[in-house]
């Protein structure tokens, strides 16, 4: 499950250039169609600005976020495609008690619905708030962007990337990083000098380029350390603690029982012999 043994440079990766995004929401529609997701009833201005639906849900795996800003006294829009980041070391996969989420060798983080017990730990763990739950159902499962795994298995590109007329480039992570760096270098005034996703959460299979500073566009600031390492630093100690605890207590009780037995055998006068801490406590109260 950890991708330490995987070659992340070959992972299929999205390069999303938000400066080229026109906000057409073709990706949103394509995603709904390909994944046969139900339409949601939406109204204008229910969320921030023109973005719709107001939040990602079990029926919406991706959406375009709108940001209003002013440039030279003019109102302008900036767009940002929200979707699963397909982390190199996904937090959702590391916390899942049954391993329902896995990082596939191709890159997408995929979900095995028949394993999921519905504990929602993945939703707590994901630093980007991506997995959503089927709240409407009595026996709900988790839903999120699949990275169009079924399509890329057949040699196609993801539905949203195919539909996008301008902004999405799709290819191996290595190439996409190269391409992003090339753009940053060639047109420094066009781009904010950062590739979101290169280091975030230990690196992801989605990379973003922006014009605005990242936080202004609504990108979350996340740690660059892979999230699973935060829990693993404690969990890796588990076998050791178990053995130490078990062994320590066994020794302690063996020792105490033996002491007791010897004392018993030698008669009561020995109780004066070198009172230890626990005996003191006991002695005090007798």
């Amino acid at each position: 499950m950890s991708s330490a043994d995987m070659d992340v440079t070959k992972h299929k990766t999205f390069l999303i250039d938000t400066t080229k995004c026109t906000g057409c929401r073709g990706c949103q529609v394509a995603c709904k169609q390909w994944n046969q997701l139900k339409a949601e009833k939406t109204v204008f201005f229910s969320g921030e600005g023109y973005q719709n639906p107001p939040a990602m849900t079990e029926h919406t795996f991706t959406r375009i976020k709108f940001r209003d800003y002013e440039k030279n006294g003019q109102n302008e829009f900036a767009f940002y495609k929200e979707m699963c980041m397909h982390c190199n070391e996904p937090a959702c996969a590391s916390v899942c008690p049954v391993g329902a989420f896995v990082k596939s060798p191709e890159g997408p983080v995929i979900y095995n619905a028949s394993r999921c017990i519905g504990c929602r730990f993945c939703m707590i763990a994901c630093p980007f708030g991506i997995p959503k739950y089927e709240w409407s159902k009595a026996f709900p499962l988790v839903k999120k962007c699949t990275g169009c795994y079924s399509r890329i298995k057949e040699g196609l590109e993801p539905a949203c990337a195919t539909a996008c007329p301008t902004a999405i480039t799709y290819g191996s992570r290595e190439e996409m990083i190269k391409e992003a760096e090339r753009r940053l270098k060639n047109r420094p005034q066009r781009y904010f000098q950062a590739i979101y996703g290169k280091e975030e959460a230990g690196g992801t299979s989605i990379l973003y380029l922006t014009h605005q500073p990242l936080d202004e566009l609504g990108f979350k600031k996340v740690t660059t350390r892979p999230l699973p390492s935060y829990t693993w630093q404690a969990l890796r100690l588990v076998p050791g603690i178990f053995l130490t605890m078990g062994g320590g207590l066994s020794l302690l009780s063996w020792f105490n029982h033996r002491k007791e037995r010897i004392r018993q055998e030698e008669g009561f006068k020995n109780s004066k012999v070198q009172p230890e801490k626990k005996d003191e406590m006991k002695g005090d109260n007798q």
Partner: protein
Amino acid sequence: MTAAKIIINEIKGYHRFLQFMIALVVIGALASMVRFIFGLGVTTNLNDTYPWGLWISFDVVTAVPLAAGAFTLGAIVHCFHIKKLEPLVRPAIVTGFLGYSLVCIGLLLDLGQPQRGWHTMVYWNVHSPMFEVSMCVMAYTTVLFLEFLSPVCEKFGYHMPLRVLRWLEMPLVIAAASISTLHQSSLGTFFLIAVDKLHNLWYNPLLPLQFWMSAIFTGISIIILEATMVHRYLGQPDESELLEILAKILPWVLAVYLAVKVGAVAFLTHGSLFDRPGLLALFAAEVLIGVIIPMLMFMKQSNREDSRMQLRGAGMVIFGVILNRFNVSMFGMIQPDQVIYYPSVTESLVTIGIIAGHILFFVLLAKYFPIFEHHPETVDYSMPDHFHATEAHEHDQGKGVEA
């Protein structure tokens, strides 16, 4: 028909309080059925912003340390060999067994696919703290069940199994303490993944250690609370002399915990601590009421001897730990601009039902099984075993000195 009549008559004879508890349990059970019929979304106030609510925060994250009395006392009595406390062990085991069974029920209710609960046993993911905790909870519930079989066998006079259980006692105590150490701390590990979500006041790499240590002092406090209640309301003998020993251990554990907590907050957190006054107040309340005041209280001999003070101190510790678990699993996770979650009626009724169920089953077990009348010397353990013979002897002698 007759059996049902007997049961109804028996229930009619119960105290009003017990009948009230039965009503709460029935209501809770109905409420949990509502959850399965109409779904989690409709019956709870959970949503994509709050995937975990009251059921995880209380029924699992808080209930597990509240049920820690059994392993703590088991280790104190059998491993550290403070045999005097033996009379408290059995009620603690019953409480622990009930507590963990109810944790399992609470967890299953909260799962989206409870019928797949067994998947954790088949599809292992050792990187998941949830996997770790579920395995431990299952293992430990089994251990507690075995320990709990002793009074059951005594009741029905099964002597062979009793001997086996007696022989298993030490291994079970040690298994209990080791397994508990793991899952009590792993509950803290849950929240280590919530980087940048859980507020700095609580988020630090020593969270698992703090969860484990607080489980120990909570376990001790629960025993004090329970023994005092049982003395007051179930007419069992006053054990405050024994509780004094526990009250003596308590400030030490609290002090070490406080040191670890202060150290962790001071040196191991990154980012601002004082940016959210509300959270700061919760943090202060948890530390003051739950740790510092009871610690100072129990440092005084006169307070340790006074049954009323024992109860008050233990009560404060328990309040503190409940607040702490809610701070970590709920309040501390709320982001500044987020709407506030509060539990729905269904969620509350189920949790109230679970608490009522705990009290109810404890009283009923105490009524029908020899839980307090546990005097090893009166039971026939006639095992040709040197070690147990001496143990029983020692107990006699202890009694003699006391009397």
